[in-house]
């Protein structure tokens, strides 16, 4: 009984001592290199049509599950429709269509990544949210000759792991994303 009341921190043998010493040393060591925050890109990674993309988390307000949506007649095909996010109406963009990626494949497309800045807000469809990551800006390859098509101008770069980083700012400021349709007049006969 008395034995059990002894403080637990007492180190019993040398091997334990060695382990602790090693730990203390490891903790005492200066980190190898401090990467300034400005060189890191905080991103959210997601899968869409068999590719993995990343988008800077500063532009992401939240990730929302897509359970239902209301299609709108007469909008461009890249607009899937509108949804209700806690009482507000949000439009949903299918990047696969906007980037004119080949139509092959049937994804889940049941996650919405809500992108926003002070002027614009819309949701991006994704098959799956992979997680968050930090990417060193310097490791980004700025352009890859094999990537062509509309999507290319919205890419910030590509990582060594073939992760395509999207330019959130550019997507949010893109004029072509905005739908503004007037009805032209034709006289009735």
């Amino acid at each position, binding site marked *: 009984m008395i034995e059990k009341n002894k403080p637990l921190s007492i180190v019993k043998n040398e091997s334990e001592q060695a382990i602790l010493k090693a730990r203390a040393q490891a903790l005492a060591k200066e980190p190898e290199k401090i990467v300034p925050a400005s060189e890191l890109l905080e991103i959210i990674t997601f899968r869409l049509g068999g590719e993995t993309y990343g988008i800077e988390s500063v532009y992401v307000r939240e990730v929302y599950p897509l359970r239902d949506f209301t*299609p709108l007649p007469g909008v461009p095909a890249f607009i899937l429709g509108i949804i209700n996010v806690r009482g507000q109406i949000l439009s949903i963009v299918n990047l696969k269509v906007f980037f004119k990626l080949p139509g092959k494949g049937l994804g*889940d497309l049941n996650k919405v990544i809500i992108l926003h800045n002070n002027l614009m807000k819309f949701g991006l469809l994704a098959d799956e949210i992979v997680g968050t990551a930090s990417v060193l800006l310097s490791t980004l390859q700025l352009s890859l000759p094999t990537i062509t098509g509309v999507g290319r101008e919205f890419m910030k770069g590509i990582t060594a792991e073939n992760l395509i980083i999207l330019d959130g700012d550019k997507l949010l400021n893109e004029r072509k994303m905005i*739908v503004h349709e007037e*009805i032209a007049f034709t006289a009735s006969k």
Partner: protein
Amino acid sequence: MGPGDSEFNRRLLQTFRVEAEEHIHAVTSGLIELEKSPTSERYAQLIEAIFREFHSLKGAARSVNLREFEQVCQPLEAIFSRLKRGEISLEPGLFDLLHRVIDFLSEFSSVSGEKRTSAQRSTQKELIAQLGILTKTDSIAPEAPKPELAADALQDSSKEPEIENLKPKQKETSFGQTVRIPVSKLDSLLFQAEEMIQTKVTTQQLVAELREIKSALASYSLSSRQWKNRRNAAKSSEHEELVSWCETHLDQLHARIISVSQTAEQDFRVMRRIIDDHLEAMKQVLMLPASSLTETFPKIVRDLAQQQGKEIDLVVSGDDIEIDRRILEELKDPFIHLMRNCTDHGIEKPARRKELDKPATGKISIAFATNENRQVEISISDDGSGIDCNQIRELAIKNGTVPSEAAKKLDSREILALVFQSGFTTSPIITDISGRGLGLAIVSEKVEKLGGSITIESTPQAGTTFRMLLPISLATFRGVMVRVSEHLYVIPTANVMRTLRVKTEDIKTVENRETIRHNGIIFSLVHLGEVLGLPEAANSSASAFKGHNADAGSVTMVILANGDSQIAFLVDEVLEELQVLVKGLGQQLSRVRNISGATILGNGRVVAVLNVSDLMKSANQFASIRKHRDGGEIARKSMRVLVAEDSITSRTLLKSILESAGYQVTTAVDGADAFARLRSGEFDLVVSDVDMPRMSGFELTAKIRADKRIGELPVVLVTALESLNDRERGVDVGANAYIVKSSFDQSNLLEVINKLI
């Protein structure tokens, strides 16, 4: 100076700004009235009033230590004091100077000290110098040219004329009964009040649901009793016990549901009343007299007229009518545009007017009047040159707005309506006042957005009148919900003339267009789904109309009206009329054809609200390009396919691919849902996802194969799983085909299905 002091100063300055604005405003109105050479009595009153305004303004500036401001007010006060005494008189030159000074003051009061530019400082010096000349007794101004006036003024000032009458156009409410509240605070209150509509709608739906549960329980109790009576004879006591246990509990549950449902219903009634009253009261709070909008107009017209070298009087009447502030706010730009239009295109230069035997001074009249429908009618008219219909016709043809043949057929009213089209201007030269050709289109769009309409009348050489009909308050929006295929839409009740059910044989084709006669009027008839551009397969009204549907004897339509035009739209069903809160479509969808917004139903479902003005235009456009449909190609295959897929996007995609290929498609959200549907309906084929909650595609296939009735049904599995094992498992459970999602495309799906059925 501590931070508290600077905060205090900031607030003081803010108060000063509001006060200064009011004084400046009163002075401006006074000056404008003075310019219209009022009676000598009124003249004296106005001079006195303006003098007092400047005096108060000077005092206010001094109290917040705005020396520069005070320096400008000083000579102004002096000038009016001299005017009062009749030592100088008001001349056109002086008016212009005074207006300039006032513009300067109003600009000056709106910026803080540090931000003042050197240009402003030099203007200030110049103005003070000019004013200074007039304040000196040995000024060049002629000595009292209106002696009788001066005498009046002297008398008046000695006996202090009635103060209440002095302030031009300012209506004073008795002191102590009113508080000044920033509009932004009221707006947010109103917004909150409006958001409560959503709660009301949701609660209403909940109450309805409770009612359904109540009746379901009642029918369970009943059938349980009937069952017991039938079996009463031959049952073991143990069984009996279980049944009566169930019955007791069912009864208890029923009783509780009844009481909950009643309470909920009562609560809902109370809530509905409170919310409605509260919203109405909030709206009343935000009603303002129309004069709050028009009070700046005399100055605007004066400035515009001066730029153009024209002489114009503005006459405003009926502006004591109270209108929702949000409407007034939205009306400001349209009004300014219309006044510009009158000044620029309407009223001629004085010389030209004399040639035409018109008074040299043109007139713009703005009149407000209410009608019995809680609407306000606003007319803006000028006595200018009017609009030449032929000129518009030619312009429309030249611009390609209207094909020349069509243009020849239009009557003068239709021709005039063209000026509301975007890109239209009648002014041969583009002046900086108007003539960019966008204005009237924007005006009409704004008015329509407020739920109003605008028309134009014009008589050559006699003038032009714009007439607007607007709601007095932004009514809580009521809409009629309609269904086209599985899509729901809300149509503003205000635009729905009536809903009808008519026999198909009553639809007549006239000149290749379908029409329907109702109450002696012939309406053209279009399919809402087609006008909206829904895919053909979704247009079930089309097939119903052709008699492929069991219910084909008659069709449902809504007759919609906008302005003068009325068109009948064919729908599948008219569901209900409801109060809705219309929300914008978000920043990305700035304007969507045929759709003005969306609303959220009690169950969270989002429904688009249709823009009837757009629909009418679309319907016209549509009618002219539409090919005459011929029967026969419909329902080439009327094979029924069940799609089971948990992802809403994939489900919708699969459905639309199959529908456009001519299949009748039913959807299910998972395997269990699919199996339930298969049991209760008739299907020719199943397309199912593999990975689904509750019941996977494998399990579903196995269950189908094990069922006697539907065991032979072809099953196509669509899956993200690519391994050979899974493929084998698919074959094992009895799937007929296996499509891998990564290589999915619409042709391989249709090919596979074609092979199977």
